[in-house]
């Protein structure tokens, strides 16, 4: 469509105008993206409740999101567990010389913060790029138009199975992530600080609050990531360049959403815990 060069827009060149434009344009763009994402989210919820469930498609997506991420999550979260125990153990040795509470506190922090968030960051890179690339290339090759012409709604047909699958799998992967990181942490504590795994595995610090907030986070991330990825994918224009742009946008937006949701839920959790 762009065989001809762009027609120059008339420019009003006052410094104040330019400054305002350079600030306002990104803000407008961000506002529009956020609004579109929320619209898609509500449409998806509508179809989740009202639409026909396509279980084969959902299971296929669950396999894609879950089973195929297991190795990736295991490697990254395993290393994270080792790193954190290494750093924390060294610091604890220097300051208190006591490693008795290391395992218990580590488990608590894993549940509250690191396992859900880092696992979600990993899913945001692996799954969000995959979804955006897949749906984006469907848009580029007119398959999404063809879906619409066959009277199938793209949100119903493409987004809903991914949404359901990712939400379920995110919770499961978070539990898996806690286990992997904890086991690797215990191993490191034994190897580096000669800490007995029986001392390390300590559930004494855990209250009902810790697993609940971890699962709430996982649930929220699991809903946000597929919506953002599919939004990026469905808004592709242009050929392979457009697909590349969409995948980048998907991973950036999804990671940012994870960080922002983490901040909001952690803050709320802190306030709730203070009230109780």
């Amino acid at each position, binding site marked *: 469509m762009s065989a001809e060069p762009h027609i120059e827009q008339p420019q009003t060149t006052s410094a104040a105008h330019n400054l305002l434009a350079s600030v306002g344009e*990104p803000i407008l763009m961000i506002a529009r993206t956020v609004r579109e994402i929320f619209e898609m989210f509500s449409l998806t919820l509508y179809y989740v409740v009202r639409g026909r469930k396509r279980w084969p498609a959902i299971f296929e997506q669950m396999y894609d999101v879950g089973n195929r991420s297991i190795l*990736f999550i295991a*490697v*990254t979260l395993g*290393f*994270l567990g*080792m*790193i*954190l125990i*290494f*750093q924390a153990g*060294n*610091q604890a040795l220097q300051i208190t010389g006591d490693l008795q509470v290391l395992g218990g*506190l580590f488990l608590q*922090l894993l549940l*509250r*913060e690191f396992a859900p968030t880092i696992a979600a*960051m*990993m899913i*945001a*890179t*692996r799954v969000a*790029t*995959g979804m*955006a*690339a*897949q749906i*984006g*290339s469907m848009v*580029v*090759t007119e398959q999404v138009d063809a879906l619409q012409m066959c009277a199938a709604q793209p949100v119903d047909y493409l987004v809903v199975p991914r949404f359901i699958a990712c939400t379920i799998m995110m919770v499961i992967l978070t539990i898996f992530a806690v286990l992997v990181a904890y086991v690797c942490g215990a191993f490191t504590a034994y190897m580096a600080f000669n800490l007995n795994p029986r001392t390390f595995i300590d559930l004494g610090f855990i209250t009902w609050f810790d697993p609940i907030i971890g699962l709430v986070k996982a649930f929220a991330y699991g809903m946000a990531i597929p919506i953002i990825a599919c939004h990026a994918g469905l808004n592709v224009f242009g*050929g*392979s*360049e*457009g*697909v*590349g*742009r969409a*995948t*980048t946008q998907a*991973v*950036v937006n999804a*990671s*940012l959403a994870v*960080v*922002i949701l*983490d*901040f909001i839920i*952690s*803050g709320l*959790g*802190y*306030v709730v*815990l203070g009230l109780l």
Partner: protein
Amino acid sequence: MQSIAAKLIRPLHGVGQSFNYWAFQIGGLCILMARIMVNMLPWRWQFDGPETWRNLYRVGVKSFPIVAVTALLTGAIMVIQSGLYIEQYGAYGLLGWGAGYTILREIGPIMIGLMFSGRVGANNTAELGTMKVTDQIDALRALAIDPIGYLVMPRFLAMIIMMFLLVVVGNFTALVGGAITSQLLLGVNMKLFAWSVITYVFLDDLFHGLIKAVAFGFAIAIISCHFGLNTQGGAVGVGRAVNASVVGSAIAIFVLDYIITFASM
């Protein structure tokens, strides 16, 4: 009988295939690294000033807002998480230490590295991949322009330099975010927070994080260029390459982080 044999072979086939895949990728990464090193030799040195400058701008300035937001929120989250313990023991003077130590040594470089890989690494793979599938790279070769010198080197340098600078800025932003949160949410005075950071957090901790930043920048540059230059198969291929690139970068970030942490003790 044949089908049973085929069923027995199939898992082996998968193993062999993924072995081939990994061997190809790791070998390709090593070759790319070697070619970059050869390009670094004084008598082979090719330096495209304007192109490097353009990449520094694109890599650094364009990803600054995202890194700043991420760092600000990460600092805030770290303060909230340590706040729960600090409150329990009433040791408000340790808040700055807890947040500062984790941010500077671990979480700052990791989070900024992951965002950098998503923003810059993915973008870079997509760009090089698009050039590859539209035959632009072959066109460069046909014009006797070395793609390593012209395309990879400026990106490589820009990514390492900018990752370093972004972590410096990001660490500072994260501490600011932590200070604001400690004041507003926990009611711990910002001055106490700052005092705690200055007293308990050492320059070593900062350098530890910065070494990681350089290593992550190096890994992201090599990985994103490698997957971009080996893209095949149109728009679908570009998507797949970006996916592989960010996954590879994430694994590299955690593995390198572990190695550096382990080596520095």
